[in-house]
């Protein structure tokens, strides 16, 4: 593969030399597996091949809107439904590339807490209903995942006040489980694996596969770029998408799995024995699914993440590949 031997300067597919574009990038959670293609493209030189210089910055979710608005950050990876909230608040971002299609959140039960799985009687609603009266850990209860869980609980007939939310961002979920402060946690992006591997929790269900009627059609993670940056660098979205596409191919080639795992760990993915297997189970895709994005934006409205339904077509950058 050509990833290890980047060309001296970027070139477009026609072979003509192009100007190098510097892109400031930040993911809200470094090392999350849905965003892995970006880390691989960076590590394997696919961005450089496309004439993109990627400057990686680490910005907390709290500071990201300000960073995007003030032009400190040009590109961010995020869950698709969170983009609705950006647009609604005047933070003008556009989708430029898909990353992962399958919604990637799991419900884990603390050691010794019995929650029925989705295969048992009542399906996922029974699992969620079993959370009544329990303490539930999520990364930021007011964030997209917190609102999503609240919406699911309501779907299952559990009212606000019948459960307790506890903010457990990042590894705090592990600490909370170990200390017996939560009965269940919602986690994802590869951060759930160490919890199970260390015997702190057991897997109950995955939203994407076990609740197909809601999450089956949604796109999970995507790359967005600020409208201002696209205006100044009209070629940037397509170049980024091509680099991501190269990364997808690279990840999906079984021959590269050791290198992919190494790059993932280097970028911050928690190391577990099942990491290779886990990576291979992801549905990475660089092309943007308009239907998938629309489904995500509709869920954002239903769960109260955004107050309006945004038209997916208006949120996609020009010149990028869609399906």
């Amino acid at each position, binding site marked *: 593969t050509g990833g290890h031997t980047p060309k001296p300067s970027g070139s477009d597919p026609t072979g003509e030399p192009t100007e190098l574009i510097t892109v400031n990038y930040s993911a809200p959670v470094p090392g999350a597996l849905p965003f892995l293609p970006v880390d691989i493209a960076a590590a394997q030189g696919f961005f450089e091949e496309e004439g993109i210089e990627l400057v990686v910055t680490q910005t907390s979710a709290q500071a990201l*809107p300000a960073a995007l608005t003030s032009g400190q950050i040009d590109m961010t990876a995020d869950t698709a439904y969170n983009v609705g909230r950006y647009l609604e608040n005047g933070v003008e971002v556009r989708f430029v590339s898909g990353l992962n299609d399958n919604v990637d959140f799991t419900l884990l039960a603390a050691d010794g807490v019995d929650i029925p799985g989705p295969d048992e009687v009542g399906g996922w609603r029974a699992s969620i209903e079993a959370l009544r009266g329990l303490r539930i850990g999520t990364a930021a209860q007011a*964030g997209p995942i917190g609102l999503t869980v609240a919406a699911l609980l309501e779907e299952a007939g559990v009212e606000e006040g019948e459960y*307790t939310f506890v903010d*457990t961002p990042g590894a*705090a979920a592990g600490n*909370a489980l170990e*200390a017996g*402060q939560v009965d269940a946690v919602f986690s994802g992006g590869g951060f759930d694996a160490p919890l199970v591997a260390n015997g702190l929790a057991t897997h109950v269900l995955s939203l994407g596969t076990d609740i197909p009627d809601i999450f089956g059609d949604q796109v999970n993670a995507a790359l967005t770029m600020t409208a201002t940056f696209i205006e100044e660098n009209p070629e940037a979205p397509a170049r980024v998408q091509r680099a991501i596409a190269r990364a997808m191919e690279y990840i999906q080639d079984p021959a590269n799995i050791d290198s992919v795992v190494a790059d993932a760990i280097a970028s911050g993915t928690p190391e577990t024995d099942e990491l290779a297997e886990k990576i291979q189970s992801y549905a990475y895709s660089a092309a943007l699914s308009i239907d998938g994005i629309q489904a995500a934006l509709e869920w954002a409205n239903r769960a109260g993440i955004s107050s309006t339904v945004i038209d997916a077509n208006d949120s996609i950058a020009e010149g990028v590949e869609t399906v």
Partner: protein
Amino acid sequence: MTSATATIVTQNAPAELARAIEGSQQRAKRKKTKWSALTVALQVLSLVVALGMWEWAAASGSINTLFFSQPSAIGTFAIANAEGLWNDTLATLRATVFGFAIGSVAGVAVAFFITSIPLLDRVLQPWISVLMSIPRVALAPLFLLWFGITETSKVALAVSIVFFMVLVSTAAGLKSVAPDLLALGKAFHASPWQRFRTILLPSCVPSIFAGLRLGVVTAILGVVSSEMVASSNGLGQRIVLYGQNFQSAGVFAVLALLAIITGVMTALVAWSERYLLRWQAM
């Protein structure tokens, strides 16, 4: 060498002197009554001007209200969300008060204990410096593990900051107790406990309070940091929540509440200090 002649002609000199003296005494008194009418007026004025400029800048579009909000919006937001803000204020305040109280008492007690054994004092010095200087926010996950995502966890983080502030300040005070009073205790055969209660403790009140004044501010900081990292209630959590939800009016409303909490607690500490040190004003 040359020399001088001095002619001093002060008419009504005693009255003159009396006035000079009176003047300087009034100056001294004025210094005590800090809250003169002019001062308060200017303080209020400066607040009004600052808020007015903020409102105007926001209204005219000079600043982005998405991030900077504006005073009127903050007021409206606070009234609309009064109940929830009030509950979280109580939660933060409770944890702050506990953290402050426990950290202060422990800090004073450990300072007295450590300084009573000079070798221990010297051996622990570097430990105290190091533990004191670790950014506590980074330790929040460990506190979660030890104390859970409960009020205890917030209190513990606050204690871990206040404790060292008060410890270091009290220990410094203990090293500068008036030698005359220490000699008095010896000459009068005071028992160790009497020495502590009647000489050391009263002597250290000013330095203990120097620590407490810093302690109030850091207690709140500790609780809020803890709530921002992980918690089920409190103003710190609201900062994160409103920050994520583009509700900058909410962020500023919370900051204002925090400023009020700090102000009230600082005033209470200052008042206690003045009460305990009322003899200094005599």
